[in-house]
């Protein structure tokens, strides 16, 4: 269905596309990062495309991920892009749907923001920044949306410890024993 979209984007923005995929009826365009805004603007404004509904924006952390059959030595490394930023778009007029993906490395985790085109991506990009630490250039108000400002790190990255907590408040009124008994241990921790 959206093969038309793939063909049209390939025809109009051949230089901006790394490659395309089709998977389970969903068409995916891997876009070069500096061309993302141009491709997205074209998808929105071109009357034969008219992608008017933003569905979601998220990110995939490919740390340690490798496809089946690839030996461990060829796993994703520092110089390979670790993150995939994903934009899903839909055209309610032509009933197209398309997925844009941008590969981003860990050291330069920046992507142009699409919030100026589709305002609904404002909070979605904030969530992606909150959870994965992707900086969206040109975003009007890029700050944490779910977590508190005191939180350090990005919890949905694969290298965040799964049980690490960053409490805001803890009890300060735990019961203390008011009666001081002489300790049965000496200074070295041995029983007297």
């Amino acid at each position: 269905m959206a093969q038309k979209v793939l063909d049209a984007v390939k025809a109009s923005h051949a230089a901006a596309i790394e490659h395309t995929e089709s998977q389970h009826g969903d068409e995916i365009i891997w876009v070069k990062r500096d061309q993302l805004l141009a491709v997205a603007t074209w998808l929105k404004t071109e009357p034969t495309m008219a992608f008017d509904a933003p569905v979601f924006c998220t990110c995939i952390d490919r740390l340690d991920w490798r496809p089946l059959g690839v030996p461990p030595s060829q796993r994703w490394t520092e110089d390979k892009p670790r993150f995939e930023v994903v934009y899903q778009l839909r055209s309610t007029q032509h009933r197209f749907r398309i997925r844009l993906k941008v590969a981003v490395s860990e050291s330069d985790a920046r992507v142009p923001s699409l919030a100026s085109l589709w305002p609904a991506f404002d909070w979605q990009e904030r969530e992606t920044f909150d959870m994965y630490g992707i900086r969206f250039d040109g975003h009007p108000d890029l700050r944490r949306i779910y977590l508190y400002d005191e939180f350090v790190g990005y919890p949905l990255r694969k290298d965040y410890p799964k049980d690490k907590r960053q409490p805001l408040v803890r009890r300060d009124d735990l019961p203390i024993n008011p009666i001081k008994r002489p300790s049965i241990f000496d200074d070295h921790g041995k029983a007297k």
Partner: protein
Amino acid sequence: MGVELTTTRLEDAAKWAKSSMLDKATGWGRKFSLFSYPFVTACCGMEFMSVAGPKYDIARFGAEFPRFSPRQSDLLMVVGTVTEKQGPALKRVFDQMAEPKWVIAFGVCASTGGFYQNYHTMPGADQVIPVDVYIPGCPPRPEQVLDALILLMDRIQSGRGHSQLRDKREQLIATSQDEG
């Protein structure tokens, strides 16, 4: 130090008997007029509604009246998952309640964090506030809640709630400091 249980002096005996009867009376009054503040954050709230509804009817035990101001309540029911972001709010609600006050952790999430083991869930409401009775279950049956309420009423009657014990502890510290 403290209250002498055996005494031959008539006035001491009368004083002890009077204070003890007063404690019994206030405990009796408190346990049958619990005003609960439901701090409902998650799906356990459905079960809380079931307990408060006519079928299981928490009103039979005098705790029927949920107050939506912590200043008018003396039983805080932490119903559902508490996140780390909610910790300051929960502590503030608890601090605003009038003494003496009691806390029930409703469900495993409020008791221990439940099946969440991650960055955002507080491992139990007792990380922030003292909890008197824990109710396991995901969500707990209404019978469990009623059982916990009866357990809490026993504690209130015998003066073993957290805030009551804290008062006694502070009195003990004060008297021991007065005695030197």
